[in-house]
């Protein structure tokens, strides 16, 4: 029993006092913890978050420019922009709970795998407010369905974008090239140039080489965004976009088509796997046609190539994506005798009238270097040696010149260096010299290898474009031009921004008379019926065949071979035949048939077919009976 004293209340029960204290302590701890966290966020990290808040609201948005177009020399559009529907998703607007339903619906509508869509949505996880491209170039009816279902497809947007369309498809694919999405590696280099995550960039062909001209420059605007990342308003346009300039090519689509038809025709008759035809104006170096088969369609890339489609192109053993006109090098074979003959005449080893004995073979030590017909031709001068393509004749010239002089004259004609054409991925070719062989094999060129080098075999390697350019210099009297693929750069309003003049690489260090001798000799190649019934064309055409062995011998000891024919057509009128002695040719052409293995020279047939179509000669040497007399079958 306690005594209670009025006015002196007992202290509350100690047990509860402790509890009040503990409770108070908890409150102080909780608030202290929160205050510490706030101090960290607001004072320690305040600057960092202030930056984020600013970014949140104010964003720089690129204004895309219109890509320049590509025309042929007659103004026919080759590459244009067409509006196309693209499907975009803003991940931030797609609630997680509806994601599966939306992805499944899009998958059905767009015929894309669901996991691919999810992967695209999640690709830039840190940029949830940036639009992600799900599909490009979708049909308009699908676009309409998506717009109509927008209520049940949150975050999905349909937008109209320019897409590249290549009007002639596979016909000019190698020349134009295609655009594709920038890769992460591209971006690392190009981010400063204003390229964006989902940008397209020219990958190959003129699309690649003239990327900076075609692209124009992107503009920039400052926009204010709301929470969902939508642009609320444009604050200001800091820079207007500038449309890209257009290109006018030297290519004439009509000539391109004739060249393609000629090659295609031969391909079907003798089952070629690969081939090239290039047509050039030898007076300027302008390339009028450049066909490489097999080809592919740039439009497949423009529409957004699938992995399967791309893999099929990569896996094709005949490599349709490669432009064989300039990206691969092959032994030039007898077309190279131009170099050997010119060099021998210039270095005084022979004169135009010097006769050399030809033989079934030449010997160096125990090695035999055979004549191609295994019999020899008796004594020949340069005209006879060139027109019959006598190997033993040119072995002797090459042996007298030696590797380095031979290389000097090869370089004069542009072999062993890139022509400098405005297309990417050009091969350099090989002209063997002692120095080159020391570098590569640690030895000098053997005498026998000099023989081979003199007839375009052995280490010699050249692109079809190099061979054509060498003969163009022969045809025009000694001017080696840089082959030209783009004539002019045009502004959007059609005005000329840049006019590419023929670019002279150098004039050949060759006496014009010597070149005249070689041109006349080239005409004799045709008139001597070395090229069989090509001479029956009502047209003065001069040229040189080449049969270039490569690879491994078959059971009969024969090597597979490519066939070449490179030709030029001296200027002619209705009254006046062309004269190969003159330097006025306006057309030069090379045909290259990879591993043709026909009895005669397949490339000559291709050129023949081209010439009779191109000049509308009114004869058809490809009629079945006449075809038997042609080069495929080695004539009669």
């Amino acid at each position, binding site marked *: 029993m306690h005594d209670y004293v009025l006015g002196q209340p007992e202290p509350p029960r100690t047990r509860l006092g402790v509890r*009040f204290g503990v409770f108070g302590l908890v409150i102080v701890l909780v608030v202290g913890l929160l205050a510490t966290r706030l101090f960290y966020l607001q004072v320690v990290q305040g600057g960092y978050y202030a930056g*984020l808040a600013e970014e949140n609201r104010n964003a720089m948005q690129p204004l895309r420019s219109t890509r320049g177009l590509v025309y042929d020399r007659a103004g026919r559009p080759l590459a244009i922009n067409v509006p196309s529907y693209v499907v975009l998703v803003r991940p931030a607007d797609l609630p997680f709970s509806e994601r599966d339903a939306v992805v499944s619906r899009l998958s059905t509508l767009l015929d894309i795998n669901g996991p691919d869509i999810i992967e695209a949505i999640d690709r830039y996880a840190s940029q949830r407010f940036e639009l992600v491209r799900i599909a490009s170039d979708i049909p308009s009816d699908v676009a309409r369905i998506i717009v109509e279902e927008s209520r049940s497809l949150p975050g999905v947007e349909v937008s109209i974008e320019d897409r590249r369309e290549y009007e002639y498809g596979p016909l000019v694919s190698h020349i134009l090239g295609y655009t594709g999405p920038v890769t992460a590696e591209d971006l690392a280099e190009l981010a400063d140039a204003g390229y964006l995550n989902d940008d397209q960039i020219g990958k190959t062909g003129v699309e690649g080489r003239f990327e900076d001209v075609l692209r124009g420059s992107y503009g920039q605007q400052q926009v204010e965004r709301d929470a969902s990342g939508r642009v609320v308003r444009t604050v200001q346009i800091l820079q207007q976009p500038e449309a890209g300039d257009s290109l006018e090519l030297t290519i004439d689509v009509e000539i391109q088509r004739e060249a393609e038809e000629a090659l295609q025709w031969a391909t079907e008759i003798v089952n070629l796997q690969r081939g090239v035809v290039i047509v050039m104006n030898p007076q300027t170096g302008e390339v009028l046609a450049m066909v490489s088969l097999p080809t592919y369609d740039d439009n497949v890339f423009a529409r957004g190539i699938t992995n399967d489609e791309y893999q099929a192109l990569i896996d094709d053993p005949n490599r349709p994506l490669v432009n064989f006109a300039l990206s691969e090098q092959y032994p030039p074979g007898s077309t190279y005798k131009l170099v050997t003959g010119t060099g021998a005449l210039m270095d005084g080893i022979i004169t135009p009238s010097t006769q050399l004995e030809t033989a079934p073979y030449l010997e160096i030590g125990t090695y035999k270097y055979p004549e191609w017909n295994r019999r020899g031709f008796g004594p020949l001068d340069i005209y006879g040696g060139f027109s019959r393509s006598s190997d033993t004749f040119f072995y002797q010239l090459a042996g007298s010149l030696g590797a380095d002089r031979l290389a000097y004259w090869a370089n004069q004609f542009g072999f062993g260096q890139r022509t400098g054409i405005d297309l990417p991925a050009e091969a350099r070719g090989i002209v063997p010299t002692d120095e080159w062989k020391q570098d590569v094999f640690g030895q000098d060129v053997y005498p026998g290898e000099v023989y081979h080098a003199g007839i375009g075999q052995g280490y010699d390697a050249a692109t079809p474009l190099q061979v054509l350019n060498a003969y163009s210099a022969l045809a025009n009297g000694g001017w080696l031009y840089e082959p030209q693929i783009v004539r002019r750069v045009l502004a959007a309003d059609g005005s000329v921004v840049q006019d590419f003049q023929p670019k002279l690489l150098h004039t050949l260090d060759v006496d014009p008379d010597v070149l005249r001798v070689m041109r006349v000799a080239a005409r004799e190649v045709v008139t001597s019926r070395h090229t069989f019934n090509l001479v029956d064309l009502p047209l003065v055409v001069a040229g040189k065949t080449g049969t270039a062995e490569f690879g491994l011998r078959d059971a009969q000891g024969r090597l597979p071979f490519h066939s070449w024919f490179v030709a030029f057509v001296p200027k002619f009128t209705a009254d006046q035949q062309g004269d190969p002695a003159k330097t006025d040719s306006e057309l030069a052409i090379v045909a290259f048939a990879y591993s043709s293995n026909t009895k005669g020279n397949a490339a000559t047939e291709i050129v023949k077919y081209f010439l009779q179509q191109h000049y509308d000669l009114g004869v058809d040497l490809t009629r079945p009976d006449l075809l038997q007399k042609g080069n495929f079958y080695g004539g009669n």
Partner: protein
Amino acid sequence: MTAMRVERVAGRGLVARPESGSWQSFDIQLAFCALALAVIGLLMAWTNSPEGPLSPGSTFTRGLMWFALAIVAFSAVAAFDYRWLRTLPWLVYLVNIGLLLLTLAIGITINGAQRWVSLAGLTFQFSEISKVIMIAVLAAFLEARKDSLGKLSTLIGAGLLVAPPFVLVMIQPDLGTALVLVAILAGALFLSGASLRWMGVAAGTVVATLPVIWSVLQDYQRRRLLSFLDPTSDPQGAGYQVIQAQIAVGSGGFFGKGLTNGTQGASAFLPVQSTDFALAVLLEELGFVGGIVVFLLFVGLIWRVLLIGWRSDTIFGIAFAGGTAAMLIFQVLVNAGMIAGMMPVTGIPLPFITHGGASLISTAIALGLMQSISMRAARPPW
């Protein structure tokens, strides 16, 4: 002069008790803290009224109306003798259950949760009122069992009382408010002297059943919890709010951007800035300094609540203070913790600052009752 009655109180001896409540015992400091917080809440309503604070139906004008109603509720409850509550707790409890059932029956569904009831054009969350009712019911229950507070049966009884409203709130579903009910239960039991051992056992049981609770959580609730662990895992959903809230808070800096100068709330980067994320806007605009002022006011308020409980001579008063203080500190912890990125997004309002009529009225009633307790506490009789 208020009429006093001298009586004998166990443990305190003879005391004097005001006959009908003494306005001299009105706790000025508590009222000041509450008023200051409510005014700050009004300031935030002002700044969060992008359509113009004075336009009809704006957050501010609605806030002003609720403010007036809260003053009335506070004063009325303070004048009301809390001891009457002890006589009709069951009636109050049944009203509470009825309101929650009504919410489930006719409630409006917003963001997948049926929490709101539309009353004369205003939406009202009865679960907010439920919190203060449960404090009173629990206090009355504990008062009735003041002689066996340490027994397990008291704990079980209190738990059974809280269970029905807890379940009804979870069904809405409103995890946040349900957790507040648990906090109230814990606070009231702890301060009134319940057995710590049994409370520990109960807490252990709850932890052990967490996996079960996880399995019954709504999908969005799970995502919220997960997104708290890694905000970038669901940046457009709950994680988005957390990230944006942290940007708002962080960019406020020491002194803030100034009232109405915030960019995060104004351009709606905080999609629910007018509700549970109001504190983020406050911290953006008033900075660290503003945040500390708000925290200090809450500490002062809870201090006064505890002090009134301490001075109270009844278990009802102590338990009521415990429940109220637990409710306040729990909501501050969860709401501010959420905004500072320390707690998951659970949708718990911050008293006074969050613009919600029910929350303000509920808090006003609780504090009014605290005043009523203060004004009727036994003191030395001179």
